[in-house]
C-alpha cells in the first residue's frame, strides 16, 4: 500500500490541522491497524447517505437544456447552455459539478430522475420526514435505515451519522445509529470514566427516553474507544486528484470534512455498513444561482475527492453514495431570483457498483402537475434496491410489501 510521505501528509493537512515538527510517517496499513479489531469482512457493501437539506432545485442540477421551456419558464434563474456540462443530447449538469461529470464519464454515476412520492408535500419538515421514514402516507417515528438497524445484531459501529444530532433516518424502534462529531469523541479519564460507565447501565426503573440517555453514554465509550486513534491519523490520499495547497478542491467545506472522517474509518476497516453525512442551505427562495452553484460545487467536489480517496484503499469497490433532498423546487421562478418549494427531483447514486446512466423518466416541462414536476419514480423503489442488493437484507420488514425496484447497480 501507499506510504503517505511526510510531504504529502503536510499538504493534506495544511490549513486544517496544526502539524507538529515531528509529524510521524504513517502508512495506510498502520492506520488500519490502529484500532479496528473486528473489521468489516472484505467486499461487504458500504452505503453512504448524503442528505441535502432545504430542497435542492433539481431542475438547475440536472438541466433539460434542449427544452426551450426551461429557458422561458424561469428566465431569471436559467443557466446558459454553453456553461452547462452536457450528459446527453437533452440533459446537462449544473456548471459547478465538474467532479461529478468526470465520474459520470467513467460510468460511475446513476441519475434517477423525477424521484418523489405520491401527493407531494411541500413542507420541508413533512417532506424530509417522508423521505427519511419512507412512510409517505402516515407519520411514524422510525427512519427506514433505523428499522434496518433494528433487524441487525446490536453494534454501536454499525451505522454512524456525522454531526452532533441524530437524524430521524437512523432512529429505530429498538436501537439507533451512533453520532460522531467531526472532531471525534473524547471520553473522560480516571474514576469519572468508571462512574460514567455505571451511569450508562440500563436500569429497570428507566422509561424509554432514560434508557436512550443511558445508551448514548454507553455508545460514547464504545465508539470513542474504536474510532479515536483512527481519527488522529491523516485521511487516505485522493489517488487521482491533484493535491493543491490547502487541501484538495472542496476540501474545506463541511461536507468534505464529514466525508474525510468517513474515508478514514472505512479505510481502517470500520464495521460500519451505513453512513450518513449532510449539507444544508438548499432552500433558495431568493438569489438562487450563486448560492446553489456554491453548494452543488461543494457536493460535487467532496464526492469526487471521496471516491478518489476510496480508490487507494481496499474498499474502493465496496462504497456506494446516495444523494437526495426532500423535494425539488417550483419550475417557474418566484420573482426573487429564487424558487418556491416544489415536488420531485433527481437522486444521484455514485460508486464502482453503479451501472452509470439515467433511470426513471425525466418529468416533462409541458405537462406540469399544478405547476410542478411530476413524480416518475417512487423513492421506495430506490430504497428497496439499496436494501436488497447492497445491504443484502429483506425489504418487507423495512418497507412493507413493495415490489418496485430501480436497477441502477451492475448485474
Amino acid at each position, binding site marked *: 500500500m501507499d506510504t503517505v510521505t511526510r510531504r504529502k501528509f503536510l499538504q493534506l493537512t495544511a490549513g486544517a490541522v496544526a502539524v507538529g515538527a515531528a509529524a510521524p510517517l504513517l502508512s495506510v496499513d498502520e492506520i488500519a491497524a490502529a484500532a479496528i479489531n473486528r473489521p468489516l469482512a472484505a467486499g461487504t457493501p458500504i452505503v453512504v447517505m448524503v442528505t441535502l437539506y432545504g430542497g435542492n432545485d433539481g431542475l438547475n442540477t440536472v438541466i433539460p437544456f434542449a427544452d426551450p421551456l426551461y429557458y422561458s419558464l424561469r428566465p431569471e434563474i436559467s443557466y446558459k447552455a454553453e456553461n452547462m456540462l452536457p450528459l446527453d443530447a437533452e440533459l446537462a449538469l449544473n456548471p459547478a459539478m465538474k467532479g461529478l461529470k468526470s465520474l459520470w464519464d467513467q460510468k460511475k454515476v446513476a441519475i434517477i430522475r423525477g424521484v418523489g412520492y405520491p401527493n407531494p408535500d411541500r413542507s420541508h419538515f413533512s417532506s424530509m420526514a417522508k423521505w427519511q421514514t419512507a412512510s409517505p402516507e402516515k407519520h411514524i417515528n422510525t427512519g427506514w435505515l433505523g428499522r434496518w438497524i433494528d433487524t441487525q445484531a446490536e453494534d454501536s459501529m454499525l451505522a454512524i451519522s456525522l454531526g452532533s444530532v441524530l437524524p430521524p433516518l437512523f432512529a429505530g424502534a429498538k436501537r439507533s445509529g451512533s*453520532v460522531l*462529531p467531526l472532531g471525534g469523541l473524547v471520553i473522560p479519564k480516571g474514576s469519572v470514566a468508571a462512574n460514567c460507565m455505571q451511569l450508562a447501565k440500563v436500569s429497570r426503573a428507566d422509561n424509554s427516553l432514560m434508557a436512550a440517555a*443511558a445508551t448514548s453514554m454507553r455508545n460514547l465509550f464504545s465508539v470513542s474507544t474504536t474510532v479515536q486513534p483512527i481519527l488522529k491519523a491523516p485521511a487516505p490520499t485522493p489517488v487521482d486528484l491533484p493535491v493543491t495547497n490547502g487541501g484538495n478542491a472542496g476540501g474545506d467545506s463541511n461536507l468534505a470534512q464529514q466525508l474525510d472522517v468517513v474515508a478514514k474509518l472505512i479505510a481502517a476497516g470500520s464495521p460500519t455498513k451505513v453512513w450518513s453525512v449532510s449539507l444544508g442551505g438548499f*432552500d433558495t427562495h*431568493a438569489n438562487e444561482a450563486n448560492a446553489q452553484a456554491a453548494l452543488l460545487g461543494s457536493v460535487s467536489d467532496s464526492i469526487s475527492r471521496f471516491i478518489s480517496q476510496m480508490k487507494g484503499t481496499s474498499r474502493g469497490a465496496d462504497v456506494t453514495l446516495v444523494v437526495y433532498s426532500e423535494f425539488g423546487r417550483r419550475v417557474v421562478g418566484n420573482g426573487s431570483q429564487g424558487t418556491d418549494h416544489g415536488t420531485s427531483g433527481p437522486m444521484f447514486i455514485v460508486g464502482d457498483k453503479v451501472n452509470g446512466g439515467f433511470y426513471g423518466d425525466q418529468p416533462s416541462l409541458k405537462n406540469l402537475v399544478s405547476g410542478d414536476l411530476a413524480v416518475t419514480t417512487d423513492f421506495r423503489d430506490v430504497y428497496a434496491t439499496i436494501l436488497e442488493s447492497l445491504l443484502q437484507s429483506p425489504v418487507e420488514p423495512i418497507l412493507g410489501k413493495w415490489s418496485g425496484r430501480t436497477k441502477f447497480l451492475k448485474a
Partner: protein
Amino acid sequence: MNLKRLEIARLSHRFAFGPRPGEFASALDAGVSATRQKVLTVPAVDAGAALVTNPLITDLGSRPKPNTAEIIPFVTGLRNQTEQLTLWWLDRMALSDHGLTEKMTWFWHGHWATSITKVDHPLAMYKQNQTFRQYALGNFSQMSRAMVNDAALQYWLDGQTSTAKSPNENLGRELMELFVLGVNRYTEDDVKALARVLTGYQLTLSAATVLVNPKRRDTSAVTLLGQTAAYTAESASDYLVAKPDCAKFIAERLWYRFISSTEDMPANLGAVNAFASRELAPAVTSLAQDGAMANPRYSMVKSPVEWFISACRALELTPSKLNDSKQLINHLNKLGQIPFYPPNVGGWPAGEAWLSSASAQYRIAFATWLIKQSALRGLNEIPVDRRVLASADWLGVAEWSPRTQAALRNSLGNPEEFVLLALCSPEYVVSA
C-alpha cells in the same frame, strides 16, 4: 414512582427552568396544588429578573460594502450586540423568580423560529423577542398579527421580496403550516392565495421596521379556506386564528414541548377547549392541570438550553458571568442549541435527537466546565451521609434509579465528580 414528586418535578422543569437550591423541597412541603398555582401566577414584580440589565441594542445601519473601512466596526458591532443579546436572555432564564414567562418566551422562539444567521441584525431579533414576551401568555390573535408585521420574521421568510407581480410563498406557507394551523390543514391553492394577500411588505431591517407599499401589494379578492374576500395581512391572520384547527394546533404544539414529543396528544385534551377564546393563559393552565402531568409515560428530554439553565439555577451561576462567554457559546453550539440560532423555521428537534453519543460527550465537558465555576452550595449544605438521596431534592429530580444511586455513592468523596454524574445522569437529562 412517587406521583407527587413526579408532578412537582415536571412543574418545575417544564413550566419553568428548574429549581434553585431549596425550592423543590419547599414545593414538596406546599403540595402539588399550591405549587401549580405558584408556577402559573405571574407576579407583579420579579425581583430575580430585575437583576438583569436590558441590553443596549441599536440600529447599526445597513451592511457596508465588503473591503471598505466601515465594514469592520459594523461587523464588530453586530458581533458584540448579538453576544450581549444572547447573554441577556440566558441570564433572564437563569435568574427570574417566575420561570413560566421565560419558558413561554422560549416556547414562542421555537414556534416562530427565526434565526439571526439570516436576519443578521440583533435589533430585529431583540424586537421579536419583546413581542414573544408581550404575548407570552396573552392573546394569540394579537400575537399572530404582530408576528405577520415582525421585521425579523418577514425577512427570514423573504416577505420583502414578495410582490403582486410575483408573490413568494415562503411566509404564507409557514404561517399556515408551522405557526397557526398545522400541516395539511389547507390546500396548495390556499398557500398561493395567502401568498398574494401577504405581498407588498418592505422593510428597513437594521431598524426592524416594516411598511406595506400599496404599489407592490395584491389587493384583489382571494379564496382562503373556502371564504372569498379582499383580505389584508391582519384580517387573514385573524381569519386563520379563528379556525378550529388553530386551537387544535396550538394545543398540539404546547403538548409537544411541555408534555410529550413522542406520544400523540389525545384528541379531547382540555387545553384545546381552554384555548377557545385564543387566550394562552387558560390553555397553559389547563395543560398544567391535566391528568397527563401525573402519568409516568409522558417523559421528555430536556433540550440543551433547558438542561444548561436548570444546571445554572442549581449551581447558582449567572450565564453572563461565566468565564468566558465565548466558551459558553461554544459549549451550547456543540450541543446544538444557541438562542436566536434555531436550525430552521421548524425550530429545534425534540426527544431522542438530543441523546446521541456525541451529546453525551459534550454534556460531560460542559458540566465539568460549569462545576468548576460554582461553590456547589446546594450540595455542600447536604450532610454527606444523606447526599445520594437528598441530591434529588436539590436538583428537582423525581427519583434516582438504583443505577445512578450506585454511581453517586461511588463519588461521595469527590463533590465535583458527584455533581458531574448527577447532571449527566439519565434522570437529570430526561424529565421523568
